[in-house]
């Protein structure tokens, strides 16, 4: 083995990796926020709507869950503009994709969460005379959110990992930065040895932070 590890090139362009990492995290957070809106709206539509609405929601969920994310990314970035007659930049398109993608998973999460809100609490809020809107906003929604929090953090972690796919449409996130350094310096071994731990450690840190949040808002918290 005559290869000598030389990390200098990686350090020289380290800002590409740091900014890439920041963008990865940002993409995951923005996507899950939009995904939550989609997921919650569709979960409510599913539980309150008629048969047509229901089957539309189910079709959306099943389609997204059974197609590779990579295909969805291409479909939305190259496919949709080609028939829509418009173009958007890669980052917007990727956020849209990841939001649509996470939305499909979050519909299921929110549906389970809404079902898990105890009936007695809803009845109690009816009994004290809250309007349906008040019941939803100040009773069902907060309890549901606290129930689904662990699932939400799992989805967020997995979205963070999925942001690595954004590199295929040239969104300058972490993996794109890695590929850039690789093609420009040919120091591929060093790049992967740095980028792999970066993903691992960041994912782990996000997980630890979210577990703290979960503990803070857990319904079974010791008082």
């Amino acid at each position, binding site marked *: 083995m005559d290869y000598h590890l030389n990390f200098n090139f990686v350090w020289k362009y380290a800002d590409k990796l740091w900014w890439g990492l920041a963008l990865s995290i940002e993409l995951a957070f923005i996507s899950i926020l939009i995904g939550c809106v989609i997921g919650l709206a569709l979960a409510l539509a599913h539980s309150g709507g008629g048969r047509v609405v229901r089957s539309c929601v189910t079709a959306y969920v099943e389609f997204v869950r*059974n197609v590779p994310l990579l295909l969805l990314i291409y479909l939305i970035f190259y496919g949709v503009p080609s028939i829509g007659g418009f173009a958007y930049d890669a980052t917007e398109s990727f956020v849209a994709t990841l939001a649509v993608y996470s939305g499909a998973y979050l519909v299921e999460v929110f549906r389970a969460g809404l079902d898990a809100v105890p009936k007695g609490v809803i009845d109690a809020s009816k009994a004290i005379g809250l309007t349906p809107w008040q019941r939803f906003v100040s009773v069902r929604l907060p309890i549901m959110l606290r129930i689904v929090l662990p699932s939400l953090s799992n989805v967020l972690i997995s979205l963070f990992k999925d942001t690595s796919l954004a590199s295929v449409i040239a969104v300058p996130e972490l993996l794109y930065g890695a590929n850039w350094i690789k093609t420009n310096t040919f120091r591929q071994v060093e790049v992967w040895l740095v980028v792999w731990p970066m993903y691992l450690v960041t994912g782990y840190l996000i997980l630890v932070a979210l577990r703290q949040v979960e503990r803070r808002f857990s319904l079974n918290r010791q008082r």
Partner: protein
Amino acid sequence: MIDFALKTLPFLWEGLTVTLYVSAMVVALSLVAGVLMGIGFTYGPRWLRFLLRVYSDILRGTPLLVLIFSVYYLMPFAGVNLNPLPAAVIALSAFKTAHVGEIVRGALQSIAAGQTDAAKAIGLTFAQRLAYVILPQGLRRFLPPWVNSVTEAVKGSSLVSLVGIVDLMLASQQVIGRTYEPMPVYVLAAFMYFLINYSLSVASRRLEARYAYIRE
């Protein structure tokens, strides 16, 4: 439109066979390794359980694409020169093994301790306990999530297109490169993926309903 679909179909079909081939390899390899891993997880000595935990957490914490690139580019550094196909299959299988291992662990640990005690009491050896008592019962809890995880393998196999293997994903890209008609080709490819994965999800749900009686 239909004419167009008929013309592109042979190319996509060729890609589809590669996708199915890669998925089948990954599913088979990860099944064998994952079952061993799950058994090690449940019955192994402490150091083995620790090593498996580290392996599983690292693999599941890495984006699959990073893993594929790392294996593809780091293997030559370790003195092994691999073609893209074996490198991708190794990366996908290593990733999948961690997931299958966790499913097996969950299935084995869900079996009541009394079963093991009873099997010990009638004098079965460890191998016999495993073969006649634990694994048959564990199988029912293992199958539904595992069949579901096969869809993940099929979806994950689309990433091999990024190291230059002409699977369904790259085949559709190539067709688009020639025809400049992205939408119909992507929709066709999506439909193919959907057909495979949806039938697997339905099978998983059926199995789950069938074995639901034992889930108490």
